[in-house]
């Protein structure tokens, strides 16, 4: 397991280095010297960060998850972000707000999907993640336009606050 951790983080570092030094060679995209130096640096960074890149399992190496993430980013996330910005422009001009902090239970198991969900709802309409419960993975969300029917029962319905983002987060990183 330790060797696999090191290998994965070294590969990540090598890919990042190659991304930074693209078009350094004339014949190929990378010159031979860059590849040698990049390998040395990848070994160093892989040794330093091997416990940070890979946590428990290697499920994020599945290419289907990357494809799903790209599809999510362009088909779901960017339109929602455009709506969010038009919404903010409307509220900046009129100054009409009805804010509150609500608690939602998305039932996500691991940290990466929770991070994806929290960052997504920060950038999408009317919501901002304020606090996360360390034990139960509940999110506290500042909601700029609180709807009355969402406040009736105590485990708030996350459909009303952030739509289908928790399902996507579970599918991508869950």
């Amino acid at each position, binding site marked *: 397991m330790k060797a696999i951790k090191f290998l994965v983080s070294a590969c990540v570092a090598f890919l990042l*280095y190659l991304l*930074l030094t693209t078009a350094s060679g004339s014949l190929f995209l990378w010159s031979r010297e860059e590849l040698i130096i990049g390998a040395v640096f990848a070994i160093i960074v892989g040794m*330093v*960060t091997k416990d940070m890149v890979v946590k428990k399992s290697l499920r994020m190496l599945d290419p289907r998850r990357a494809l799903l993430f790209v599809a999510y980013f362009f088909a779901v996330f960017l339109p929602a972000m455009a709506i969010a910005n038009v919404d903010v422009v409307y509220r900046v001009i009129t100054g009409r707000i009805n804010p509150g902090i609500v608690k939602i239970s998305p039932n996500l198991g691991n940290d*990466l999907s*929770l991070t994806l969900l929290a960052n997504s709802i920060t950038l999408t309409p009317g919501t901002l993640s304020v606090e996360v419960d360390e034990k139960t993975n509940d999110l506290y969300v500042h909601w700029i336009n609180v709807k009355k029917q969402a406040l009736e029962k105590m485990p708030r319905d996350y459909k009303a606050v952030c739509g289908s983002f928790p399902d996507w987060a579970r599918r991508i990183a869950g």
Partner: protein
Amino acid sequence: MMSKIVRTMCNILVPLIFVFGLYVIMHGHITPGGGFQGGAVFASGVAFIIVAFGSANVQKRLKEHHLSVLESGGGLIFIGLAFGGLATIFFFNFLVGSPIFGHIPPSGANPGDLWTGGVIPLMNIGVGLKVLAGLSAIVLVMALVSSGIEVEE
């Protein structure tokens, strides 16, 4: 220790910061940057880990004497390279023309060849080691002291 989201983000961003710091150190002679700047970027990555995970957790993995050894090593590399050219003159660039970093760049505008510069890239590495270890040690020790943990002499 900060919240779960910041910690996960730290895990994602720190390899990027480290690779970028090493890139700035290595390309000091053809792009902006150099040993000092790259070392400072790398040390900022260490500062990021300290603020995200707490200095007590960092101290379990990274002791002050490791950083001390790194800093002294960087200084020794620099001085050794400076004395290496003493056969001709102090700080003589004796690696030009040799297989290590020995290419002589063509005159005029060119995209930049990494394998040039002689001892300059190696000296950048020495300076970078010294700066990254020194600045990381400063931030780590100050964080430990401000949270009331004993620091080894």
